[in-house]
């Protein structure tokens, strides 16, 4: 089959769409928060993900408005336990754990977080609090494991993940693993940068939208 035979109008459209997507992907790379830019710091030599992974992106017929894609995830992710849909029982236990922690009774706080966990075992914020409490108790391995578990359940929540990587960095520092701590800290930083970028973009988009709304009550495209 010759090249010419293959170039049908459909193919042309698809290629155009692909190129558009690739270009778009390049533009929005930085604020893509669901995946930390520092992919796998342990093996930096490994080849990165093959660049044209376009086929997974369903080729859209028209390019989406550029502001939507990076912002949707941030908007959808809860920032705190209270916003995570936790029930009143878990929130009550969180308050108790907070009191225990303020009183320096970290073991009691851990027990209260574990009670909360039995009620909502898949809540990433509870796992994160367990990690934090384990760190107070100087159980750095347990702190790191719980933070990892929180990452697993966080499903790409950048707030959860950045805090977890900070906890992991602290846990590794406590163990004397400074290289590992550095890697974890840079992941946390990258996530924070991504959050900031996304928030700026969001603010800009909001400003643009409001100015657009202010300037004209013109018909929508």
């Amino acid at each position: 089959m010759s090249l010419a035979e293959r170039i049908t109008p459909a193919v042309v459209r698809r290629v155009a769409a692909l190129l558009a997507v690739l270009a778009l992907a390049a533009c929005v790379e930085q604020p893509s928060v669901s995946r930390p830019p520092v992919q796998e710091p342990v093996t930096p030599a490994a080849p990165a993900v093959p660049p044209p992974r376009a086929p997974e992106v369903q080729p859209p017929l028209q390019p989406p408005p550029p502001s939507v894609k990076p912002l949707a995830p941030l908007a959808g992710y809860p920032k705190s336990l209270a916003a995570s849909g936790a029930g009143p029982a878990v929130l009550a236990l969180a308050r108790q754990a907070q009191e225990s922690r303020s009183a320096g009774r970290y073991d009691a706080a851990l027990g209260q977080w574990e009670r909360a966990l039995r009620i909502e075992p898949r809540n990433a914020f509870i796992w994160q609090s367990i990690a934090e409490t384990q760190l107070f108790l100087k159980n750095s391995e347990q702190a790191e494991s719980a933070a990892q578990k929180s990452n697993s359940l966080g499903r790409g929540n950048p707030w959860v993940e950045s805090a977890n990587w900070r906890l992991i960095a602290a846990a590794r520092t406590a163990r004397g693993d400074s290289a590992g701590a550095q890697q974890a800290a840079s992941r946390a930083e990258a996530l924070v940068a991504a959050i900031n970028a996304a928030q700026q973009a969001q603010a800009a988009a909001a400003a643009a939208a409001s100015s657009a709304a202010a300037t004209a009550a013109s018909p929508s495209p």
Partner: protein
Amino acid sequence: MIRIQSPLLRWLLIGLALSISIGLVVLSFWLVRLDREVRTLYAGVRWVLPAQVYAAPLELYPGARIKLPELKRELDRLGYRASDELTGPGTYVLAADEIRIDTRGFAFWDGVQAESRVAIRCDDSAVSAIRAMGSDQSVDLLRLDPMLIGSIYPSHSGEDRVLVKLADVPPLLPATLIRVEDRNFEHHFGVSPIGILRALINNQLHSGKKQGGSTLTQQLIRNLFLTNEQSYGRKIREALMAILLERHVSKDEILEAYLNEVWLGQDGSRAIHGFGLASQFYFNKPLNELRPAEIALLVGIAKGPTVYNPRKYPERVKERRDLVLRLMTDGGLIREDEREAEALSSLGVLNNVAGGVERYPAFIDLVRRQVKGLYREEDLGSEGLRIFTTLDPRAQEMLEARIIADLPGLEASRKMKADSLQAAGVVTSVEGGDVLAIVGDRNVRYPGFNRALDSQRPIGSLAKPFVFLAALADPGRYNLYSQILDEPVELRQPNGQLWAPKNYDRQLHGTVPLFAALAKSYNLPTVKVGLDIGVDRVHDLMQAAGLENPPRLPSMFLGAINASPLDVAQMYSTLAASGYLTPLLAIREVMTKDGKPLSRYSFKLKQTLPEGPVYLTTWAMQKVIEFGTARWAVSVLPAGQKFAGKTGTTDDARDSWFAGYGADRVAVIWVGRDDNKPVGLDGAAGALRIWGRLMRDLDARGIDLAPPAGIEEVSIDPQTGLRGDEGCAGVVLVPFLEGAAPSDYASCANAGQSSPLEWLKDIFR
């Protein structure tokens, strides 16, 4: 004779005077020594206080998955009494749409749960609201008092007791005790001369029958320090020691010691000491909730718990109880009309021993093993430690009920004799490693061989998920839709024997996708994949999942691995928890007898299996239930919810296994025979039946289907395992490790020949 008589008399008199003096000196010395002995003995009295073992408390909160009838059942199990109005802690009122409870206070490890009156509403699946009575305040969270499920008492003496303080017991109890046993207690000096005299005369008249006459102090001395031998020497010693003790110790202290020391019953090898435990043992409630008739019963049987065993001789005990009730009225302790009402009541003694090791022997066995390494044997038996465990009495009773209910049906289905099958089961939480329920024998109260922990049986196909996990962890070579040829495999074993496994159905199935080989539990593809991936890799993953010392032989792919149901629960809970290993724990906290926190046992967590491949394996294990060997379970599991599991059958169907999980519960069931004869039940026909209904009864939640990071879902043409799209019939969305999905399109796909990637590749080729 006469000549020497006078000096003899003189000498005799002198001798007499001398010996009296010496006697008095000796007596004083003896008394001083005895006094010292009493003091040191009494100071050294350390109550034998076995460790008390508690179940996990029921946590009630809006959203807690419990219905009103179950809540009522829970309260009944805790010994709460149903009534028309709340009359004090430990009572409840069941109304049409809510349950009102006066909860008992309890000092937990992390704080006191105060007594409270609450009204709880439930909808048809969960608690919908909790309201503090007398106010409109809603309650976020409430812990009921935990159920006392047993004690760890020393095997040599078998002494079991729950310590009480005089200040905490209802005043009617000591008052009745004094009235019945030692009316003059408040005023005598340790012995009651009149009592002794009366007893002496009586015992002379009726030599066979021994009458008391001894004071509470004397009884205490006898129980604490002396043997039960009946001799005047001992009697005198006892009386003197009682007098001496009263010089050092207050009446209240003596009374309190008596309340805790007295023997009040026997439960096999376990001796029930003290009123605190007796109240639990006979009535399943704390002392301060006893009615006058119940107090009368306990005081009555103190006279002789063998003769007055209320479970054996209810009529004799009722007579005795009513006599005590009359003594209460005579003493002005209760009014006559109260006595009449109380005397009408039945004994109220529970037929089954509440709590005690007999109730959940398999679980207590696990607790005993887990605390063994943590505390010294003598401390466990004597220090009154309070051990708080993970046991969920509801899950435990559901597991017991299932095994009891389902085994006869399984026997009938294979025309087996009744009671020829045995079974064991374990239920754990997915996160946190809590052991929630254990059954080690179909006779669930029998404290014998604990199959859940000690029976080591080949696990059969339960091993297969780990073979495929090892394959899926190698995304360059395998994915869920890898096409595996089902063909004969022959292997020379290290011992020279030829190993030629067969499929269970003795058929060959052509080419099958990897996940279907697991779902249908085909042996030959499993062995093929296992050999390709390597024994060591599979071995390492099983070990990482928590199995100790798995073998390193190809036969392990098909489960030639001996393990107990608890071992399997450990392995499968690591899969259920996305690859995080948490050693299963039965204990959470230990407190001292005074309620001070001693130690807490947090779960330990470590990621030992890669999350993505575990997700893929779990996906394949869902297919076991959707259309594989366990599809029967679809008929009992809640519609629309996904569970993952695996059947296990060993050679000639000697062992029938099922292990599986949802989002919050892991359950493992084994069915087989103790003599290891074939049972004719494969995993699906046997253990699965119990497992499926159990998961339904447990109200287990289905698996969270959202894929973790590092997983992409791709439309696949099921015929070829290649990418498909709307051009293919019945494409399915299949998870892959990122970058591991097939890049080629199936021929049916519209995009097939001209995917942009292909096209780009062609350009640069």
